[in-house]
Protein backbone atom coordinates (compact mmCIF):
# COMPACT_ATOMS: atom_id res chain seq x y z
CA UNK A 1 0.00 0.00 0.00
CA UNK A 2 1.12 3.51 -0.73
CA UNK A 3 2.32 6.13 1.70
CA UNK A 4 0.18 9.23 1.21
CA UNK A 5 0.77 12.64 2.70
CA UNK A 6 -2.10 15.15 2.71
CA UNK A 7 -0.92 18.74 3.05
CA UNK A 8 -3.36 21.22 4.60
CA UNK A 9 -2.20 24.78 4.00
CA UNK A 10 -5.33 26.94 3.72
CA UNK A 11 -7.14 28.78 6.49
CA UNK A 12 -9.83 26.39 7.73
CA UNK A 13 -12.92 28.32 6.59
CA UNK A 14 -11.85 30.45 3.58
CA UNK A 15 -12.93 27.62 1.29
CA UNK A 16 -13.85 23.96 1.69
CA UNK A 17 -10.44 22.57 0.65
CA UNK A 18 -9.39 21.58 4.17
CA UNK A 19 -12.62 19.69 4.81
CA UNK A 20 -12.42 18.02 1.38
CA UNK A 21 -8.78 17.02 1.88
CA UNK A 22 -9.57 15.59 5.33
CA UNK A 23 -12.36 13.53 3.75
CA UNK A 24 -9.90 12.26 1.13
CA UNK A 25 -7.40 11.38 3.89
CA UNK A 26 -10.06 9.37 5.71
CA UNK A 27 -10.94 7.51 2.51
CA UNK A 28 -7.20 6.90 1.94
CA UNK A 29 -7.04 5.21 5.35
CA UNK A 30 -10.20 3.19 4.66
CA UNK A 31 -8.42 1.90 1.52
CA UNK A 32 -5.48 0.78 3.70
CA UNK A 33 -3.18 3.61 2.65
CA UNK A 34 -0.47 4.69 5.08
CA UNK A 35 -1.84 8.17 5.62
CA UNK A 36 -0.09 11.19 7.16
CA UNK A 37 -1.35 14.77 7.36
CA UNK A 38 0.87 17.86 7.49
CA UNK A 39 -0.58 21.23 8.55
CA UNK A 40 1.46 24.19 7.35
CA UNK A 41 1.19 27.87 6.45
CA UNK A 42 -2.36 29.08 7.30
CA UNK A 43 -3.40 25.42 7.55
CA UNK A 44 -2.14 25.42 11.17
CA UNK A 45 -5.20 27.54 12.14
CA UNK A 46 -7.14 24.28 11.64
CA UNK A 47 -5.53 23.05 14.87
CA UNK A 48 -6.99 25.76 17.13
CA UNK A 49 -9.50 24.63 19.78
CA UNK A 50 -13.08 25.91 20.21
CA UNK A 51 -14.05 26.16 16.55
CA UNK A 52 -17.73 26.63 15.73
CA UNK A 53 -18.21 26.09 12.01
CA UNK A 54 -21.98 25.99 12.49
CA UNK A 55 -21.98 29.75 13.15
CA UNK A 56 -21.01 30.33 9.52
CA UNK A 57 -22.84 27.31 8.12
CA UNK A 58 -19.74 25.16 7.61
CA UNK A 59 -18.41 21.87 8.90
CA UNK A 60 -16.30 22.30 12.03
CA UNK A 61 -12.76 21.35 11.06
CA UNK A 62 -11.68 20.59 14.64
CA UNK A 63 -14.53 18.06 14.92
CA UNK A 64 -13.35 16.38 11.72
CA UNK A 65 -9.84 16.23 13.18
CA UNK A 66 -11.03 14.56 16.34
CA UNK A 67 -12.66 11.86 14.17
CA UNK A 68 -9.34 11.00 12.47
CA UNK A 69 -8.19 8.38 15.05
CA UNK A 70 -11.44 6.47 14.36
CA UNK A 71 -10.18 6.12 10.77
CA UNK A 72 -6.75 5.12 12.07
CA UNK A 73 -5.23 8.34 10.77
CA UNK A 74 -2.77 8.97 13.58
CA UNK A 75 0.28 10.46 11.86
CA UNK A 76 -0.46 14.17 12.25
CA UNK A 77 2.25 16.78 11.81
CA UNK A 78 2.48 20.55 11.81
CA UNK A 79 5.10 23.00 10.58
CA UNK A 80 6.77 24.44 13.72
CA UNK A 81 7.73 27.66 11.87
CA UNK A 82 4.15 28.26 10.70
CA UNK A 83 2.88 27.93 14.30
CA UNK A 84 5.57 30.22 15.73
CA UNK A 85 5.07 32.91 13.06
CA UNK A 86 1.37 33.09 13.88
CA UNK A 87 2.04 33.02 17.65
CA UNK A 88 -0.37 30.12 18.13
CA UNK A 89 -0.56 27.73 21.03
CA UNK A 90 -1.65 24.35 19.75
CA UNK A 91 -3.24 22.09 22.32
CA UNK A 92 -5.34 20.10 19.92
CA UNK A 93 -6.48 16.58 20.34
CA UNK A 94 -5.58 14.26 18.56
CA UNK A 95 -1.91 14.91 19.13
CA UNK A 96 0.04 16.72 16.43
CA UNK A 97 3.84 16.54 16.19
CA UNK A 98 5.58 19.83 15.28
CA UNK A 99 8.33 19.45 12.66
CA UNK A 100 11.21 21.66 11.54
CA UNK A 101 11.59 22.39 7.82
CA UNK A 102 14.32 19.72 7.55
CA UNK A 103 12.01 17.17 9.19
CA UNK A 104 9.20 18.12 6.80
CA UNK A 105 11.54 17.62 3.86
CA UNK A 106 12.30 14.14 5.17
CA UNK A 107 8.60 13.39 5.75
CA UNK A 108 7.77 14.40 2.16
CA UNK A 109 10.70 12.41 0.74
CA UNK A 110 9.41 9.24 2.47
CA UNK A 111 6.04 9.41 0.69
CA UNK A 112 4.81 7.74 -2.48
CA UNK A 113 2.38 10.59 -3.12
CA UNK A 114 1.68 14.06 -1.76
CA UNK A 115 -1.88 15.36 -2.08
CA UNK A 116 -2.92 18.98 -1.57
CA UNK A 117 -0.08 20.76 -3.36
CA UNK A 118 0.13 24.55 -3.55
CA UNK A 119 1.48 26.75 -6.27
Amino acid at each position, binding site marked *: MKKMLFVISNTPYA*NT*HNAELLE*AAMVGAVFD*GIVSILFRDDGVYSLLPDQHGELIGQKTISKMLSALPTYEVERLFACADSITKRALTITSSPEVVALSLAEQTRLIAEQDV*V*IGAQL
Partner: protein
Amino acid sequence: MKYTLAIHGAPYASQSAQHGLALAQALLAQEHTIERVFFFHEGVYQALSTRVVPQGEEDLLSKWQELGQHGVELAVCIAGGIKRGVISEEERQRYEKQSSSLAEHFTLVGLGQLISAINETDRYIEFPA
Protein backbone atom coordinates in the same frame (compact mmCIF):
# COMPACT_ATOMS: atom_id res chain seq x y z
CA MET B 1 4.22 4.47 -17.11
CA LYS B 2 0.73 4.75 -15.68
CA TYR B 3 -0.40 8.13 -14.44
CA THR B 4 -3.18 9.60 -12.33
CA LEU B 5 -3.77 13.32 -12.80
CA ALA B 6 -5.78 15.61 -10.52
CA ILE B 7 -7.24 18.98 -11.48
CA HIS B 8 -8.05 21.32 -8.58
CA GLY B 9 -8.81 24.64 -10.29
CA ALA B 10 -11.98 26.07 -11.82
CA PRO B 11 -12.06 27.34 -15.42
CA TYR B 12 -10.85 30.98 -15.66
CA ALA B 13 -9.71 30.94 -12.01
CA SER B 14 -6.34 29.29 -12.62
CA GLN B 15 -4.34 27.50 -15.29
CA SER B 16 -4.84 24.16 -13.58
CA ALA B 17 -6.76 22.73 -16.55
CA GLN B 18 -4.46 24.10 -19.28
CA HIS B 19 -1.41 22.63 -17.54
CA GLY B 20 -3.13 19.34 -16.84
CA LEU B 21 -4.33 19.01 -20.42
CA ALA B 22 -0.91 19.83 -21.85
CA LEU B 23 0.70 17.14 -19.71
CA ALA B 24 -2.04 14.64 -20.54
CA GLN B 25 -1.58 15.21 -24.29
CA ALA B 26 2.22 14.92 -24.00
CA LEU B 27 1.94 11.71 -21.97
CA LEU B 28 -0.39 10.08 -24.49
CA ALA B 29 1.84 11.20 -27.38
CA GLN B 30 4.69 9.30 -25.71
CA GLU B 31 2.51 6.23 -25.22
CA HIS B 32 2.14 6.48 -21.48
CA THR B 33 -1.19 5.53 -19.92
CA ILE B 34 -3.47 7.87 -18.00
CA GLU B 35 -5.63 5.76 -15.76
CA ARG B 36 -7.86 8.56 -14.56
CA VAL B 37 -8.11 12.34 -14.37
CA PHE B 38 -9.70 13.24 -11.05
CA PHE B 39 -11.49 16.59 -10.73
CA PHE B 40 -11.45 17.77 -7.12
CA HIS B 41 -12.21 20.98 -5.18
CA GLU B 42 -13.25 23.72 -7.69
CA GLY B 43 -11.82 21.51 -10.46
CA VAL B 44 -15.27 19.88 -10.65
CA TYR B 45 -16.48 22.94 -12.62
CA GLN B 46 -14.36 21.72 -15.56
CA ALA B 47 -17.12 19.15 -16.10
CA LEU B 48 -19.99 21.64 -16.40
CA SER B 49 -21.85 20.98 -19.65
CA THR B 50 -23.43 24.44 -19.70
CA ARG B 51 -20.21 26.34 -20.36
CA VAL B 52 -20.17 28.57 -23.45
CA VAL B 53 -16.72 29.31 -24.87
CA PRO B 54 -16.19 32.95 -25.85
CA GLN B 55 -15.01 33.45 -29.42
CA GLY B 56 -11.26 33.21 -29.81
CA GLU B 57 -10.79 31.30 -26.56
CA GLU B 58 -9.65 27.76 -26.02
CA ASP B 59 -12.43 25.17 -25.69
CA LEU B 60 -11.09 23.26 -22.69
CA LEU B 61 -14.23 21.20 -22.26
CA SER B 62 -13.93 19.70 -25.77
CA LYS B 63 -10.27 18.96 -25.14
CA TRP B 64 -11.11 17.02 -21.98
CA GLN B 65 -13.83 15.19 -23.87
CA GLU B 66 -11.35 14.24 -26.61
CA LEU B 67 -9.21 12.62 -23.93
CA GLY B 68 -12.33 10.84 -22.71
CA GLN B 69 -12.92 9.50 -26.21
CA HIS B 70 -9.37 8.13 -26.16
CA GLY B 71 -10.17 6.03 -23.12
CA VAL B 72 -9.00 8.36 -20.34
CA GLU B 73 -11.49 8.22 -17.47
CA LEU B 74 -12.69 11.70 -16.53
CA ALA B 75 -13.75 11.28 -12.91
CA VAL B 76 -15.46 14.06 -10.97
CA CYS B 77 -15.56 13.89 -7.16
CA ILE B 78 -19.25 13.24 -6.50
CA ALA B 79 -19.39 14.96 -3.10
CA GLY B 80 -17.55 18.01 -4.44
CA GLY B 81 -19.48 17.98 -7.70
CA ILE B 82 -23.06 17.77 -6.55
CA LYS B 83 -22.66 20.44 -3.87
CA ARG B 84 -21.35 22.78 -6.57
CA GLY B 85 -24.15 21.95 -8.99
CA VAL B 86 -22.33 19.50 -11.26
CA ILE B 87 -24.93 16.74 -11.42
CA SER B 88 -25.48 13.75 -13.67
CA GLU B 89 -28.90 12.67 -14.94
CA GLU B 90 -29.05 10.06 -12.16
CA GLU B 91 -28.35 12.67 -9.48
CA ARG B 92 -30.79 15.07 -11.12
CA GLN B 93 -33.52 12.51 -10.60
CA ARG B 94 -32.39 11.64 -7.07
CA TYR B 95 -32.40 15.29 -5.92
CA GLU B 96 -35.31 16.31 -8.15
CA LYS B 97 -33.47 19.12 -9.93
CA GLN B 98 -34.67 20.74 -13.14
CA SER B 99 -31.69 19.82 -15.29
CA SER B 100 -28.46 17.89 -15.19
CA SER B 101 -25.15 19.62 -15.85
CA LEU B 102 -22.46 16.95 -16.14
CA ALA B 103 -20.81 17.03 -19.57
CA GLU B 104 -20.58 13.92 -21.73
CA HIS B 105 -17.60 11.59 -21.08
CA PHE B 106 -17.34 12.66 -17.42
CA THR B 107 -18.55 10.49 -14.55
CA LEU B 108 -19.30 11.28 -10.92
CA VAL B 109 -17.31 8.99 -8.61
CA GLY B 110 -16.49 8.67 -4.93
CA LEU B 111 -13.19 9.66 -3.34
CA GLY B 112 -12.31 5.96 -3.21
CA GLN B 113 -11.75 6.18 -6.98
CA LEU B 114 -9.03 8.79 -6.39
CA ILE B 115 -7.29 6.57 -3.86
CA SER B 116 -7.57 3.41 -5.96
CA ALA B 117 -6.20 5.25 -9.02
CA ILE B 118 -3.25 6.43 -6.91
CA ASN B 119 -2.69 2.87 -5.69
CA GLU B 120 -2.78 1.41 -9.19
CA THR B 121 -0.55 3.90 -11.01
CA ASP B 122 3.14 4.79 -10.99
CA ARG B 123 2.70 8.54 -10.67
CA TYR B 124 0.13 10.93 -9.20
CA ILE B 125 0.41 14.48 -10.51
CA GLU B 126 -1.72 17.30 -9.15
CA PHE B 127 -2.55 20.65 -10.73
CA PRO B 128 -3.43 23.05 -7.90
CA ALA B 129 -5.79 25.98 -8.23
